[in-house]
């Protein structure tokens, strides 16, 4: 796989889901998550197209992170941006990603999101997709699964996480203003995280 192709697929999946993500955010936020993320990946596409052909995975992810930070804005911009930057750092000098590296990268990304956003699991954020995904990869590694199998489990766990966000009250992000009334709605950020994971899995599978 080339990292650039994978990112493009993830970004395209987000752009395709733009309206859906925006609708989700209208219900419990300010109705811009899809718009923000689509704008971010359009900008990222220009930036990765300008990369040298020999750019390694870490370089590509760094470009994505910087690109998202400087084009998304809102809450998701710094969070996803930081996540990609940390994932980039976690795979420095690697040319291929095995399951263990994948988990290290995802954990670094999660740590980055938490450093910035101070949220934990169960607050109805993107973390409710990403943390279960990471845990699923861990379980897969323990069970001797390869990176593709692990990613498959991660996607399933993230999807379950998205469903779970419907059942809980938001205590971080804009949806927290709604308190009880955020129940019943799925979190836009958890949804976009899952979309990206799924695109990645579709690419490598």
């Amino acid at each position, binding site marked *: 796989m080339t990292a650039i192709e994978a990112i493009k697929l993830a970004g395209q999946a987000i752009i395709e889901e733009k309206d859906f993500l925006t609708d989700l955010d209208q219900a419990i936020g300010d109705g811009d998550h899809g718009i923000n993320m689509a704008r971010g990946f359009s900008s990222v596409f220009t930036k990765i197209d300008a990369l040298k052909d020999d750019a390694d995975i870490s370089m590509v992810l760094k470009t994505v992170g910087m690109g998202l930070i400087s084009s998304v804005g809102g809450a998701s911009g*710094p969070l996803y941006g930081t996540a990609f930057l940390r994932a980039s750092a976690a795979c420095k000098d690697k040319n291929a990603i095995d399951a263990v590296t994948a988990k290290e990268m995802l954990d670094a990304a999660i740590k980055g999101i938490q450093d910035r*956003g101070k949220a934990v699991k169960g607050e109805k954020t993107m973390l409710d997709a990403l943390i279960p995904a990471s845990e699923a990869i861990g379980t897969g590694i323990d069970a001797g699964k390869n990176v593709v199998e692990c990613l498959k489990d991660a996607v399933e766990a993230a999807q379950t996480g998205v469903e779970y966000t419907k059942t809980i009250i938001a205590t971080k992000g804009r949806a927290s203003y709604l308190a009880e009334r955020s129940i019943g709605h799925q979190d836009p950020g958890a949804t976009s995280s899952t979309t990206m994971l799924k695109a990645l899995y579709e690419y490598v599978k």
Partner: protein
Amino acid sequence: MKKIINNPDNVVEEMLNGMVASHPEYLERLEGFDVVTRKNKKSDKVTLVSGGGSGHEPAHGGFVGKGMLDAAVAGAVFTSPTPDQVYEAIKAVDNGKGVLLVIKNYSGDVMNFDMAAEMAEADGIKVEKVVTNDDVAVENSTWTIGRRGIAGTILVHKIAGAKAEAGASLEDVKAVAEKVIANSRSMGMALSPCTVPAAGKPSFTLADDEMEIGMGIHGEPGTHRESITTADEITQQLLDKIFAEDIYHSGDEVAVLINGLGATPLMELYVVSGKVQTVLQEKGIKIAKTYVGNYMTSLEMAGCSISLLKLDAELKELLAAPADTPALVQF
């Protein structure tokens, strides 16, 4: 969606160009960035940078000028600007005396401005931050992200701006901004939603006889919805929620800001303001100054917010100090 625009994807750019072209005596555009800066910079004062998503005009670019902000950063509509934009604004206005960032309390704004502050500090620029959180529609507790910053933010611009203009240190400017934040509270309601140009459809829908209480200035749903009632009852309800904060008491002196959300006729704002004056008078609260108009809007939302600021001698004097900006002139 009915709007006088050309292209939803270009609306912020065109708005900023129009703003700067309309007010060349006040504003300059920071080339290549969504930042407007004060035209006649004063080189020996603490500088103030604010900003946030677009769609709240005249906030924040309209408050750039003498006695208020030195730069305003405009994000996409209702979306916090990115750190690099804020960072450029800080660099553009810093003159060595330090920069105060006035941030409205939203996760996105706080994170993006934080990152910008880190970038500027890495360059050796002195940066301080205050986070406004006047909206009592939202609970403030350690378990939530706290109250939102809404129209009360303008009073921070005004007073901290006056303090900076008077030559105060970064610490003192920050302290007076914190004082405004501690003493100001706001509460809003809407008769109609607004439509983010790129989204193309309204943020929520209301029946013909419904109003939304405590909605956010980005079209976030409110605390509840009820049948439309009279201006007096609406005003009383908003004030009751503000008074529940136990800040404003008989004998106090306050400033009042009756803020239109973009599509509210001034006629209605004055009806509300009249009732506010009566209620405060009955409570024995003195009003030093009332502002009525569109200060922190939500695109074409119909509705209003009421803000109160408890004044002491320092705040009162700074509020009355001159300001010369496109959206607020006072002498």
